[in-house]
């Protein structure tokens, strides 16, 4: 089956992301990764489904929570682990760390730790594509909380006015740090986007990689035809906002929602496929960790390079 092959491909990438992050969890207490990590465990399907629905030269602008997008876009695993380790072999020579993964060679155009700040970047790239008559599209990836920032409004308005090929992709995990969406938002994304004349879709099945891929293909087609689009995908953050632990014991949320999500999470449900793919993926990860461990730390030579 064609769909089956696609599913397997998506599944493998999602599992790679999950296992990479589980490896990060294991490594973290060793203090080898000395930087804040925002895990996407539970949210992998979004990155995987979306990136698979894009063309390789479509550009993604992302956030501090972008291990998933980095991997799904095809970033090098060696360079990623070395980056988390703060080593010279890192994709950014250790200067970026987990919060600022980038891989322009595969279309990941940088991740910012300031919420919402890359949204207008995607709009700007799309503006450029349009003026040059290119068929690429730009994707702004952001969380539900990011839509509260004024720049989201400015970006939607400008994108709609200029009719630029930008896909606004909201990962709705319902949380901004420990705040639930209803205490932060008086609007729903669909109506809000519609008020700018921007079409949108909300996908509740954020565990379903094929559905996300399909929704992305459809949205991207509209975007490529010259209309911005808002795609909102419901998802679930299993771990704490930042760091490698769980946070249910802090009582700001219960585990119910996450448990329900896990019951539908293919990476948990489909243990057979996990078992099949795992050994190979683990070897890949171990190689990347080994690469990172072997990579030298940057030194004084690097400190003042690339400032201007």
């Amino acid at each position: 089956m064609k769909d089956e092959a696609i599913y397997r491909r998506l599944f493998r990438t999602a599992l790679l992301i999950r296992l990479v992050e589980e490896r990060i969890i294991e490594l973290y207490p060793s203090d080898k990764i000395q930087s804040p990590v925002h895990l996407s465990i539970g949210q992998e399907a979004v990155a995987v489904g979306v990136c698979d629905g894009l063309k390789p030269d479509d550009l993604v602008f992302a956030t501090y929570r972008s291990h998933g997008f980095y991997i799904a876009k095809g970033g090098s695993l060696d360079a990623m682990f070395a980056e988390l380790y703060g080593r010279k072999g890192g994709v950014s020579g250790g200067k970026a760390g987990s919060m600022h993964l980038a891989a322009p060679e595969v279309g990941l155009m940088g991740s910012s730790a300031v919420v919402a700040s890359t949204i207008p970047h995607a709009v700007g790239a799309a503006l450029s594509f349009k003026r040059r008559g290119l068929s690429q599209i730009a994707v702004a990836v952001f969380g539900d909380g990011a839509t509260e920032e004024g720049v989201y409004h400015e970006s939607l308005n400008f994108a709609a006015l200029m009719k630029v090929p930008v896909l606004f992709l909201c990962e709705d995990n319902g949380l901004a740090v420990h705040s639930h969406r209803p205490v932060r938002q008086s609007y729903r994304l669909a109506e809000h986007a519609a008020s700018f004349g921007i079409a949108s879709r909300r996908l509740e099945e954020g565990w379903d990689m094929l559905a996300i891929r399909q929704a992305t293909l459809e949205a991207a087609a509209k975007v490529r035809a010259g209309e911005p689009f808002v795609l909102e995908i419901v998802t679930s953050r299993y771990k704490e906002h930042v760091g490698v632990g769980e946070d249910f014991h802090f009582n700001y949320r219960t585990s119910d929602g996450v448990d329900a999500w896990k019951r539908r999470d293919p990476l948990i449900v489909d243990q057979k496929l996990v078992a099949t793919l795992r050994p190979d993926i683990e070897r890949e990860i171990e190689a990347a960790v080994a690469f990172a461990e072997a990579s030298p730390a940057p030194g004084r030579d690097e400190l003042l390079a690339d400032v201007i």
Partner: protein
Amino acid sequence: MSIAAVKPDQGTRVLSYAGALLETMDAALADHANTFIMGQGVDDFKGIFGSTTGLAEKYGAARVFDVPLMEEGMTGVAIGASLVGDYPITTHIRADFSFLAMNQIINLAAKYRYMFGGLMRCPMLIRIVVGRSWGQGAQHSQSPQSTFAHYPGLTVVMPSSSQAILDMYPAIINRHPGPVISIEHRLLYNLDFTVSPSEHRVPLTSYVARKGSDVTVVATSVMVLEALRAAQYVEDKAGISAEIIDLNSISHPDWDLVAASVRKTGRLVVADTSWLEYGVAAEVCRQLVMRDPGLLRQPPTMLGMAPAPCPTAKSLEDIYYPSQHETVDAILVQVRGDNHGIALPVERSMTEGYKRFRGPF
């Protein structure tokens, strides 16, 4: 050497920086019905690193509340509330996020009293936290004191201890006539300080944190602690007596105090948390040469962030920030010259001295 040993003075109890913040926040809400605290996460279980924990429960959601991600809007809301007599306290868990509120802070809050010839006032406290270490990276580590202090109308302080908070915050909240920006330092939050009952030992300006006669060290925020540690070291190892001035107020320092100290010592180290260019170190030099270019017997030594955005890698971060090693060296170079020959402390990374501060936040 442990931090607990760094006592600003004899005191009567031990209180962490976060604890001092929580006490002053609590007291502000208890004492002033017009005071409220708003900011992202002020009412959650982390409570701005422990500085607001439990206050929402104690004073209710109308006094202590979470806000959406809206730095510019929140600051504008605070100004509006202040204009009608409230006293708002807002928070930014990283100083970097205050750049999103720069228009409201600089164009509005800082100007309102003057622009309307005294008709308007918007007293309020904006608490912003500087990040450092554990790979905070380029966007979670900035320390914009000179940026804010450049603009008349703003009062900018950088409390370096629990005592500074206990003394200054009650003098600011609902008492100071205008907007105040307090730049708190994340590395200080978990440190314990010995504090004495508030006798306003820390004024809303600069003060001598340690008396000395050989060299003047002007320091801000966490660099005051580094300077105190270094001063102890150079006294122990080389019998050098360093005078340490906590600049404390960046907008309204006591420059005469600084000049008097330099007049006495003729030697200067400036240790700041930000970049040197157009920073605190620059203004210190201006104030000195305006009084008397002869005050300095030799070029001063300056410690601040390397002239680059902050890198994430630990190996780079360790050389990006001035370490205890460099602080000690700076003092020794000033007093004994480049070839002072005195062994430096092995500790290179400052965070090694702050064991209780451990990532991710």
